[in-house]
């Protein structure tokens, strides 16, 4: 007999006390608390683990603090390409989307792929065609913009272009803050 439980993450990397001031640290902790509380409440009410993880992730997707949906990092071309996946442990059924640009909640679309398609992963234009068929609302890619991520893009591009190494090697030299959120 086990207990119900939930855990969440909002990204890993070069996160030190020197990089975060008190105000930023408080903001991250408050949003993490909001997300974990939402998921826990669903579980405490007898809801499913699937509903709990989706609810928690969607709160973080809507926050500019994290690298997902609103707050996502920029591609080289200055856009946002979003990925998401969902899996349930009772049936081993899974759904995933890659490289979508106009879906407000990629995790919701990943779950839709799991529940409403015979496939596991859909990508790019095809994933958005599926979303349209399922009645998903589309948003402008600019909705995911944030100033601090745009500055990160400019910094990363400058470092890559200044390097005398081939692009792939130059990219490898970037600090981990550019490699993931």
């Amino acid at each position: 007999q086990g207990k119900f439980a939930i855990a969440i993450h909002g990204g890993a990397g070069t996160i030190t006390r020197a990089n975060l001031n008190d105000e930023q640290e408080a903001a991250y902790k408050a949003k993490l608390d909001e997300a974990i509380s939402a998921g826990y409440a669903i579980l405490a009410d007898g809801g499913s683990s699937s509903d709990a993880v989706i609810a928690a992730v969607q709160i973080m997707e809507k926050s500019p603090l994290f690298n997902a949906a609103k707050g996502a990092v920029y591609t080289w071309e200055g856009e946002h390409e979003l990925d998401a996946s969902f899996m349930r442990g009772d049936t081993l059924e899974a759904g995933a989307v890659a490289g979508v640009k106009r879906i407000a909640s990629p995790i919701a679309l990943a779950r839709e792929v799991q529940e409403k398609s015979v496939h596991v992963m859909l990508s790019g234009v095809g994933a958005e065609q599926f979303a349209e068929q399922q009645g998903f609302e589309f948003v402008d890619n600019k909705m995911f913009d944030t100033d601090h991520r745009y500055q990160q893009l400019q910094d990363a591009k400058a470092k890559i272009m200044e390097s005398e190494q081939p692009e792939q090697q130059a990219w490898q030299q970037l600090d981990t803050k550019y490699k993931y959120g």
Partner: protein
Amino acid sequence: TVGAVARDKQGNLAAATSTGGMTAKRYGRIGDSPIIGAGTWADNESCAVSATGHGEYFIRYHVAADICSRMKYQQVDVKTAGDAVIHGVLKDAGGTGGVIIVDHKGNVHMPFNTEGMYRASRVEGGETEVAIYQD
């Protein structure tokens, strides 16, 4: 990258991960997040995992599924399995990042080999734990 894993009152596990990928990515690059087995995995017989980190390494070492397989076939606990992959296999290969894990009994473990990982957890009857740094 953001993610969540959970075990409900029925004993069912689920995992979810969502990301914008890496800064300045080109060529339609995708990382581990949408790759089932690399960045996300759930199996009621073992555990549920969501990953965050340098995705190419998580793909090569199918990190999320590897942790659950170790629990399932080696019969080790969630901490042993998670630490072996994140602090052993992944780190030895030069990969950085972390995972959140909840096992089939509701035990939670959140190992990472970077300076920090934004994370939180709550187990039935317990308090919410929110943390960022290693210590």
